[in-house]
């Protein structure tokens, strides 16, 4: 067991040992996971950060190379190679990292992402609260689930039980002189109000590509990218050059199948209409990723539900799809 004060000291020490520390802090947009200098600024009582761990592993703007047309040169921009501590993200976000790992590291590896993951230690803070949009338990995870976490901190009263779940976690705890707790039970996890039964969903999606239900479930959607960009597992990107007359940079930017211009660089956007683009979102998460890496690309963090300005609710969409004959 560790008190909050001692935990903050440990984070301070990690900073002194050259870890770049990312942690939840209160900002204009809400509580954001950002690089911090002072652990005293860390927020503990939020449900979930507004942003996801993509801001650490797959940033919205990433400079890949610099070029100079006149000089006919192009050089790769190297990434930082320092160690990163992600402190205080929630179990759903840690689980999302495992999904991204399965997609982006493997037969074809995104080397920049993989290198960042290699340097990243995940010290996750299990949830003591949940809101109306949380449905992680329906996706096979839970408020205290250790998936993706190197170290999991379970709240017990005002203190935390320390659990290590990977060799990296053990090594990190040793480095900071902390010891994992065995045989101690933490506070019970919060009850989730939201539950969605997804049995049979994959079989439905295997067959319902042309079903009219896609029109009705996407009717409210205005084709913005809020749910995609807020999602911890959406990972599509675009590569563009941003330059003056001669010198410039090659950038990787977030992109989404929701936009009418998506994949136009490769000829055209094959998905005409909002229903087709919304279908792609659901198919990608609940069918294609299952087909490819045997994982559902949703952790039930509920950010898409919270972010949607027009009340598109993933749980209801899934229920409608499962119940549709």
């Amino acid at each position, binding site marked *: 067991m560790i008190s909050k004060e001692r935990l903050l000291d440990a984070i301070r020490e990690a900073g002194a040992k050259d870890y770049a520390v990312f942690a939840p802090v209160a900002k204009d*947009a*809400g509580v954001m996971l950002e690089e911090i200098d002072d652990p005293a600024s860390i927020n503990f009582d939020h449900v979930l950060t507004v942003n996801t761990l993509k801001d650490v592993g797959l940033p*919205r703007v990433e400079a890949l190379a610099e070029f100079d047309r006149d000089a006919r040169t192009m050089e790769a921009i190297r990434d930082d190679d320092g160690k990163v501590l992600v402190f205080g993200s929630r179990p759903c976000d840690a689980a999302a990292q495992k999904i991204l790992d399965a997609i982006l590291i493997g037969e074809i590896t995104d080397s920049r992402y993989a290198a960042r993951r290699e340097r990243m230690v995940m010290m996750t803070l299990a949830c003591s609260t949940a809101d109306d949009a949380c449905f992680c338990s329906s996706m096979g995870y839970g408020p205290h689930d250790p998936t993706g976490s190197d170290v999991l901190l379970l709240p017990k009263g005002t203190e935390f039980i320390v659990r290590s779940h990977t060799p990296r976690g053990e090594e990190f705890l040793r480095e900071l002189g902390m010891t994992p707790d065995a045989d101690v039970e933490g506070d019970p996890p919060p009850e989730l109000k939201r539950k969605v039964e997804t049995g049979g969903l994959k079989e439905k999606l295997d067959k319902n590509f042309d079903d009219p239900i896609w029109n009705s479930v996407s009717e409210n959607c*205005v084709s913005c*990218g809020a749910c995609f960009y807020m999602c911890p597992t959406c990972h599509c990107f675009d590569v563009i050059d941003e330059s003056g007359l001669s010198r410039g940079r090659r950038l990787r930017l*977030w992109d989404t199948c929701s*936009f009418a*211009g998506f994949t136009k660089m490769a000829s055209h956007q094959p998905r005409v209409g909002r229903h087709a683009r919304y279908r792609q979102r659901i198919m990608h998460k609940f069918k294609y990723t299952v087909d490819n890496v045997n994982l559902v690309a949703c952790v039930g963090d509920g950010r898409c539900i919270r972010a949607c300005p027009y*009340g598109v609710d993933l749980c209801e969409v899934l229920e409608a799809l499962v119940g549709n004959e």
Partner: protein
Amino acid sequence: MTSNLEEPLRAKAAELLSSGKVDLLIGYGRAFLGESVRPVFLRQDADTAKLIWNDRCAHNLATYLMKEPCLGLVKGGGRVAVVAKGCDIRAIATLIQENQIERDRVHIIGMACSGVRYDEDSRDMAIKCRGCEVQLPALYDDLIGSEADTGEVEGEPREDIERILALDRSARWEFWTRELSRCIKCYACRQACPMCYCGECITEKSRPQWIDKAASLKGNIAFHYIRAMHLAGRCVACGECARACPMNIPVDLLSRFLSRRVEEAYAYKAGMDPEADPFFLVNRQDDPGEFIR
């Protein structure tokens, strides 16, 4: 808080749908989260029990008029009914002025409004409602409610633009740097905006690439400034862009400010008269700008 206008609204909606006067009715229904509300699309009178009307009905449903299925329906000779507050009706009027939709293709169900709230925990009305001049709509096919249903909007008066104008240049720059640096370019503001109906937005063009596509400070400033310029004299101050923003950026400040400048210089206020020529199409002999006369 349920309003006593809910029942008359449902009755009117049932009448419109059962008589075939409209093919589709866009209104407000209940969402799962808390007491929140979301748009609903109704096609038969049996569905009208889903309709609700209360002070959480903040969305400007006019934005759907420029999207499917409305576009196709209207093109095929159909009619769409929209449940609309005074501010939303200004957007519909602007769309009519700009020849985006014919007046008789849209059936406006005007709602007498006493302000909306974004946050269920907040007692205060949305800041967009402070000083509202259109609580009782002037343009409609049916009006639900009357003067008696337009209670006074509570809360401090809206002075957000004044607060920015009171800052010196460097403080203003600091403000916008802070706000716009966190934009992730999800384009929720643009997609929510009933006035942003371009088929392809200049910010997404890459051949040629007019502005930086990246969600960097430079690219973000370019996007939001262009959007604000395109909304000068067109923004109806419905506040949907700011409400839609998942990063909590007050993007409506820019377009509202430019529309206010247009109002001051030309006595033109967007969406108040569906018969008026759109602001950008008017060339007047007494134009205050010398270069254009």
